[in-house]
């Protein structure tokens, strides 16, 4: 039992597969995290009545170049700063 961890021939195949997954997932990791940040920002802005799409439009118009990673971190840890960014976005719209 457990040949994939005990028998060399089977194990080496699993190792190769694991390395392939690692190669592929280093690329998908970047996409996955961006999607998560977008979901989190969406949640935070909708709590204030603004949708994510409108928020990003307002941010671009206001000239704020923060990326989504930072915006989501701000939304979680530093609500005051995030609210100020929301206000700036709403003014620019």
């Amino acid at each position, binding site marked *: 039992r457990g040949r994939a961890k005990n028998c060399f021939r089977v194990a080496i195949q699993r190792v190769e597969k694991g390395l392939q997954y690692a190669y592929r997932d280093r690329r998908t990791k970047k996409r996955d995290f961006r999607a*998560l940040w977008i*979901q989190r920002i969406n*949640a*935070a802005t909708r*709590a204030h009545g603004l949708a994510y799409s409108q928020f990003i439009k307002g941010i671009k118009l206001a000239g704020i170049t923060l990326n989504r990673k930072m915006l*989501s971190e701000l*939304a979680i840890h530093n609500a005051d700063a995030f609210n100020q960014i929301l206000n700036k976005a709403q003014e620019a719209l």
Partner: protein
Amino acid sequence: MSSFHRASQSLRTHARMWYLIDAKDQKVGRLATFVVKLLQGKTKPIYHPAADVGDFVVIVNTQDVVFTGKKWNDKLYRHHTGYPGGLKEIKAKDLHAKDPREVLRKAIYGMLAKNNLRYTFMRRLYLYKDKKHPYKNNITQELTGPCKPAKKLQDYTPAEIENYPYKNLF
């Protein structure tokens, strides 16, 4: 922020809320999408699909929930018992007569992601057909549903009724 040290901050952020929603005059599907967002925790900026950050939702007055059009007569809930010729069909109005909570429960169940967390989220959903529910001490916030009540004939002013464009519609 002197008393807001890390532990109590975390408790406030990660606490599960209890929401009360009145389903009277709410359209089934639209209410279900609203509730599913609360159950999954997608309204919180700490959301993560693997972490369980969902909230509790208590829905009252499910017997007054609304289907538009002729769905009460036409919508069929089907399931197959596995035996040959065992397709069971039940109309929405009959299902509602049997158990007024089922229509909404099926809608929400179908809208949740089909993964292992669905069972956990459904356990946090409490449906009651009338106003009585035993969770008065738990409710943290009462929410209004996404649908506004439809305008009744009494609410239209006579001028609006006069000028309603029904003459040259087609």
